[in-house]
């Protein structure tokens, strides 16, 4: 967890200066407004001060947990925007993760039980397709079939509970596919092990053998994959949020970059970095719980 501080400081510094290098500023607009108006806005947001002073002020405010005002949305602070958009991304991400895990594990287990038969090739073929198909292809395809042809779901938005279905599948599909391959692989490694044969010899039911003895150990690579997968789902959600017009943090991030909303870009970078570090730490702890070897090592 301690690496958090240098990681944050480096990302803030890079982003702080990089966004200001991009041509155009937060108040550049299609119609030019009087120079005095722009000057007033710059004063209002402290953008008229020397850049190092701005940097210092930003860090001081950050220590107080204040990410500053948004330039694009004057009536909201960056903290407000994160408070409003993060729960949306979290819901989407968590549901996608749940979907990925349930479908992925199930397919992996089913495939590993009868390797190299149709029961293996079917789900694994699907998984391969899932891994290869980018979300910007899968999303519109699902919308076309289930939204426009069958008329079961809305084509965009985040208003109804049913609006969650298509985005969650779109976001979770690739991860489900990857998890199923991981699960199958490690299941196949463990199933021939001596202790599994012992378990069967003791007369345990097949379900106990698979779910209690095999799966627990087969899960290790899946759990270590969860850290990067969570980060990927969070940072990758912007594509899905854009395709389905979901008011989440990923889409906000993209809009902020186009709008040159300096504080909002920075605030989201800080928040994303925090999230990634925290999730990695959580995964480390989970792995320790599952694998005594790692615990002893630590």
């Amino acid at each position, binding site marked *: 967890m301690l690496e958090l501080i240098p990681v944050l400081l480096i990302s803030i510094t890079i982003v702080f200066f990089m966004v200001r290098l991009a041509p155009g500023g937060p108040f*550049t607009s299609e119609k030019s407004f009087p120079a005095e108006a722009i000057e007033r806005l710059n004063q209002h947001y402290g953008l008229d001060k020397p850049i190092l002073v701005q940097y210092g002020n930003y860090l001081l405010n950050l220590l107080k947990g204040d990410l500053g005002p948004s330039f694009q949305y004057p009536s909201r602070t960056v903290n407000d925007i994160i408070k409003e958009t993060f729960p949306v991304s979290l819901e989407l991400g968590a549901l996608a993760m749940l979907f990925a895990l349930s479908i992925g594990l199930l397919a992996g287990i089913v495939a590993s039980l009868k390797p190299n038969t149709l029961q293996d090739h079917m789900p694994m073929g699907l998984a391969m397709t899932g891994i290869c198909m980018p979300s910007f292809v899968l999303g519109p395809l699902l*919308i076309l079939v289930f939204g426009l042809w069958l008329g079961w*779901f809305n084509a965009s938005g985040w208003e109804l509970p049913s609006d969650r279905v298509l985005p969650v599948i779109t976001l979770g599909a690739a991860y489900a596919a990857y998890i199923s391959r991981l699960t199958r692989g490690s299941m196949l490694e463990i199933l021939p092990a001596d202790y599994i044969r012992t378990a069967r010899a003791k007369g345990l039911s097949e379900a106990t053998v698979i779910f209690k003895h095999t799966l627990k150990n087969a899960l290790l690579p899946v759990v270590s994959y969860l850290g990067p997968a969570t980060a990927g789902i969070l940072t990758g959600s912007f594509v899905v949020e854009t395709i389905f017009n979901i008011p989440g943090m990923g889409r906000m991030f993209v809009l902020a970059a186009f709008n*040159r909303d300096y504080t909002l870009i920075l605030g989201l970078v800080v928040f994303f970095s925090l999230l990634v570090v925290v999730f990695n730490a959580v995964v480390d702890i989970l792995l320790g719980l599952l694998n005594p070897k790692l615990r002893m090592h630590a």
Partner: protein
Amino acid sequence: MNRFTFLAILLLLSGCAKRETPVETGNREKILHLGNLSEPKDLDPHVVTSVSAGNVISALLEGLVAEAPNDPSLKPVPGVAESWTVSDDRTVYTFRLRANAKWSNGDPVTADDFVFSYHRILSPAMGSPYAYMLHLLKNGRAYNLGTIPDFEQVGVKAIDSKTLELTLENPTASFLSQLKHWSWFPVHPPTILKYGRMDEIGTAWTQPGNFIGNGPFILKAWRQNQSIVVQKNPLYWDADTVSLNEIRFYPIGDHKIEERSFRAGQLHVTGTVPLDRVQYYRENKPELLRLDPYLRSYYYLLNVKKAPFNDVRVRKALAMAIDRKKIANFVTRSGEQPAYSFTPPFIGSYKPPMLFSTDVEAARKLLAEAGYPNGENFPATTLLYNTSDLHTRIAEVVQQMWKDNLGIDIELENVEWKVYQERRKNRLYDIARAEWVADFADPSSFLDVWLTDGGNNHAGWSSARYDDLLKQAASTDDSSEQNALYAQAETILIGEQPIIPLLFLPSKSLIQPSVKGWNPSILDHHPYKYIRLEE
């Protein structure tokens, strides 16, 4: 597959019958679903600049004058003001406010509220981008720039609680039409002061629950990047006319997603139509497609401070070598009209001069006279535009026409939106695509762009005579005389050709048949109080 999984899947599928779409529910419950393109920055009329914010604000607030439901000429009709008188010298307007005009909390709308609002937008500390609209007022500009510290000297006065007197710097024929712009709308003073100082931007007053308006609708919910919901205001003075119970504005920036949402029955009216879908709707579902004339002029900007564009013959040659009809009929194909002037030919009675046409022979001759026969030795030139399907298509065909007709090679340069704006503003281009959308229905909303001190005059072109003509036109009250002055000014502009007019773009939308009262408007304004939904 065993029997159980089969049954489970069957159950799942049977649960997913075709749903009732939001449009169907909306028709029944009188809820209008609108595509609103982008997320408004704010809902403060003294802060915002975008059309999408203006759309929402026009539901929440009402100015002194308003728009009639179906009047293509957009003649101002009484709004909060039930009547007005104008002094003989056309500089003093006295408005009589309606006795029954109320704020959504029940307070009466008073003349003092307007004084407060105009004081607020003109306050230098607000830095309001549209404050310049109020520079029409006597001393409005001076107060806004801080040269006069005393607001008493600005031409805004409350004679009594229901009588408002506005004094103009100069007689301005388009004044009443300009009053329809949201920068002239009132705000509720106690609400502003409850959440901050008068001249403070970004306070919480625009949030749902806090917002007090005087328009036909009140703000119910604002979920950022998701939707803005307004519902009927029972205290609005003309509430009987309002048929809708609710309007929901959706900020869908991607035109393709918006069109898909329309097809899925989620939107009654879209903000636009993707370029490559127009043809499909025209051929298959023409009843859903609307292409209406709009005050939007699409043109190329020439950097007249730079060779070879400092030579008017080169500028004219480039303009004459483009076949605009071909572009409109075979490339963009969405109801565009060829443009040979900067001002569209459908603002009131004004008919812009037609000073040139497509004439390849004449263009070649002019180019040769300028020293580039058959395009030889023509300096390397780039055409700058921001990333968009429309701009790319037009740029590519213009590039080809210049090559075929004049023998010159132009390079295309496609950049991101803010980069483009920055380069255009600092005149770092040879040729740049540009467009202008009018703020109010008057030729001056177009022609004022090219004033010497015009903030949007990015061509670097200037003419004292042009400035003078527009000044004269502004203070003329006779419309035929005024049109003549505008035409003279535009003749100078197009004669010197710092810009190449290309197309007049229409307003494009997809609209469900259940929407009634959505009439064509050259400003793309559709007063929501007159919109009805049929089941």
